[in-house]
Structures are given as structure tokens and as C-alpha cells.
């Protein structure tokens, strides 16, 4: 690969990010834990029990958007990465890099949001660190969180457990976080009724797994959106998926904002949704369990695992079939 510099696309969670991981991080850091490539890494302890660990860094601009802020995102993101791996999230660490000149009241707001989200998720932030860099060296405030959780014994979920015949569900409307953040971005400037869906998923997942213990795999479709998550899981599992466009839940506000800007909602982030693969005979129970919770009220069956292949497909409302691939390049507003 002839690229000499990091491009913005390398951070979008799509194809370019994957290339970077495979080109730089994985080969150099290589170890059995890192190779697993799921949302969290599950590690065996000496003795019984398994831990899940994960980390994520949050740099969203703007830091404050309808429905949430960077702080809330920083806690929910890591909590959810643990929860979708079947772990009970327990402890988080938080590292702050703050630009000189940042308003103290903004920082306080972010930390308050973190505290609130941590209470909702029933986790403790047990260690933290702060660095301040000169004005202009970063933009505002970046937060890294790392999380540790305990994996319920007997649970062996992951892309490896996806099988033909399973049903694909999503817990609610997609692209809400993505649209909320876009609306607050300078230069795009529109008011939206859409608010970020950022929320901890632990309780929803507990309910889901209690009703559908055969659930094979879960993922929170964050950066790169639903399409990237589906394409990635299809490739990892070696199975083909078929998703029905008409079945994917989307608020009218999301549809309108994306139509206006020319952005595909399938590639916009969710921060409080879970994608679920479960056996056909447990699908009804899974759906009912998710819908029984407010954050899962919009849950829908969106498709199924059809066979072998490693590809994700979308059947469009008008009857065509579209191959879904990971986000390639940035998701930019367009005029044509």
C-alpha cells in the first residue's frame, strides 16, 4: 500500500480503518487476544471465569449535540462494547486530553454526563487521567475509556456462532446519533427533531439474553453504521445475510435529514442500538423482550442469514438487491 499519510477516512470505522488495523496495528502488536477482532476481547483468567476488556477513544466534534455529549458517548460506547460481547460491564477507566483554553464549565458538563451514564449503566469509573495540551494542538477535548467486564459462564457468542437460518434483528431506529451530530456541525446548520440514541444497552441485552439464550452474536453498530457492521460480520462469519430495506426502522426525521444532505443513513452511527443474530425459533421471544424495554421499543426483525458466502445484501424497497460493504471513504454531504 503506497499511502504515506493518515487520512480522515482511516478513522471512520469502515474499510480504511480496517486496512490500517491490518496493515499496522495487528501485525505489530500481534497476540491471541488482539486477533479476535470483535467489540471486546474475552480473556481467560487463571482459574474459572473470563474477563472482557475493551477500549475506545471519543473525539466527536461537536462535543455537544442533541440528546447527548462526548461524555455520555464515552461511557456508553465502552459499556456497550462489553455488553454486546455478553459481558457484564463493571469498571471503566477514563483518560482526558484537553486543549488549553477549554471552558471549565464544558468540562464539568462532560464529566457530569459521564457520571450520569455510569449510574445508568451500573458501572464505576475507577481510574482516570488528565493531560492538557497547548492551544490548537487538539480540538477541544478527547476522552479515552477502557472497560472491564465479567463474562457469564457458558456464553460463547461472537461472529463465529452465526449460522444460516438465523434471524437478524435490530433494537431500534438507526442513524439517530449520526444525524444528531451532523445537525450540530458547523456549516451544515439545521435543526433536527432527531436526538442521539446514545444509551447503555446492558439492561436491554440482559432481557434479550434471558428470553433468547441461544443468541449467537450481537454488535452495536457505531462508526460506519448498520451497513458496516453487517458487512463486517458477514465477512467474519463467512455467511451471507439478506436484509430487507423496508424492515429497517428509521425515524422520518432521519430520512429527511439524509435526503437533504445526500447521505446514506445505513452508514451513519448509532450509539444505543444492538444488532442481534438469533435462532429462528427464538426470534419472537427476542423481539418481545427488546420491545418490553423503552430503549428497545422500536425493535424489528430486519433479515436473515441465508447461507454461506461472507457477504451482506440489502433488498431495496423497489425490488433490487444491493451488496452492502463497509463504509469506504467519508460519509459526506453531496449535491448529486
Amino acid at each position, binding site marked *: 500500500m503506497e499511502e504515506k499519510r493518515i487520512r480522515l477516512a482511516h478513522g471512520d470505522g469502515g474499510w480504511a480503518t480496517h486496512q490500517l488495523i491490518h496493515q499496522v496495528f495487528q501485525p505489530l502488536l500481534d497476540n491471541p487476544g488482539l486477533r479476535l477482532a470483535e467489540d471486546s476481547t474475552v480473556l481467560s483468567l487463571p482459574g474459572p471465569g473470563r474477563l472482557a476488556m475493551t477500549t475506545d477513544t471519543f473525539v466527536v466534534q461537536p462535543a455537544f449535540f442533541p440528546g447527548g455529549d462526548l461524555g455520555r458517548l464515552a461511557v456508553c460506547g465502552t459499556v456497550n462494547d462489553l455488553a454486546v460481547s455478553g459481558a457484564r460491564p463493571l469498571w471503566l477507566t477514563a483518560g482526558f486530553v484537553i486543549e488549553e483554553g477549554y471552558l471549565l464549565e464544558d468540562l464539568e458538563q462532560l464529566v457530569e454526563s459521564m457520571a450520569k451514564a455510569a449510574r445508568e449503566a451500573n458501572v464505576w469509573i475507577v481510574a482516570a487521567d488528565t493531560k492538557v495540551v497547548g492551544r490548537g494542538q487538539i480540538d477541544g477535548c478527547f476522552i479515552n475509556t477502557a472497560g472491564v467486564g465479567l463474562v457469564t459462564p457458558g456464553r460463547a457468542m461472537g461472529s463465529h456462532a452465526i449460522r444460516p437460518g438465523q434471524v437478524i434483528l435490530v433494537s431500534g431506529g438507526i442513524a439517530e446519533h449520526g444525524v444528531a451530530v451532523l445537525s450540530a456541525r458547523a456549516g451544515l446548520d439545521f435543526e433536527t427533531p432527531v436526538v442521539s440514541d446514545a444509551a447503555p444497552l446492558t439492561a436491554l441485552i440482559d432481557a434479550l439474553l434471558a428470553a433468547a439464550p441461544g443468541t449467537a452474536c450481537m454488535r452495536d453498530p457505531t462508526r460506519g453504521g448498520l451497513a458496516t457492521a453487517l458487512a463486517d460480520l458477514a465477512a467474519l462469519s463467512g455467511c451471507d445475510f439478506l436484509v430487507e430495506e423496508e424492515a429497517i426502522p428509521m425515524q422520518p426525521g432521519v430520512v429527511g*435529514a439524509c435526503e437533504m444532505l445526500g447521505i446514506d443513513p445505513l452508514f451513519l452511527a448509532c450509539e444505543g442500538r444492538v444488532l442481534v443474530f438469533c435462532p429462528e425459533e427464538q426470534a419472537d421471544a427476542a423481539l418481545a423482550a427488546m420491545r418490553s424495554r423503552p430503549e428497545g421499543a422500536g425493535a424489528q426483525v430486519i433479515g436473515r442469514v441465508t447461507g454461506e458466502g461472507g457477504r451482506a445484501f440489502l433488498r431495496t424497497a423497489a425490488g433490487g438487491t444491493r451488496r452492502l460493504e463497509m463504509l469506504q471513504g467519508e460519509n459526506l454531504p453531496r*449535491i448529486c
Partner: protein
Amino acid sequence: MCLAVPGKVVSIEASKAVVDILGNRRTVDVTLVNAGVGDWVLVHAGIAIQVLDQDQAAASVAAYKDLMDTIGMG
């Protein structure tokens, strides 16, 4: 070659209108159309390029419905 989206005019002040697109609101330049509050306009790159012809819209809806009914029966 152009993504344009319909929106409803919510308010107008001089050459700028607030337009509602499925709940989203944006300020749109309406210099090039004769639009009033409540009209539907076609929005492209931050400007309104046309106002919906209500009569034609109604006629189209009716025509399409007829067509689909005929085909559905055929």
C-alpha cells in the same frame, strides 16, 4: 444529477425561509421562487429551485393511483 428534496415552508423573512423536511428545519434561500408559508418547495444546495404545482401534484397522485389500480387488476 441532482439531489433535491421537497420541504414545507414554515416561515419566511425577506429572501430566507425556514423549511421543514420531515421534521428537520433549515434556512433556505427563496429568492428564486414565489413561495408562501405552507407551500412545498424543492430544495437543492440550500436554495429553493421550484414551488410545487399543487394542481399538477393532485393530478399526478390521481393518475398514478389509477395506473396502479389498473395494473393491479390486469
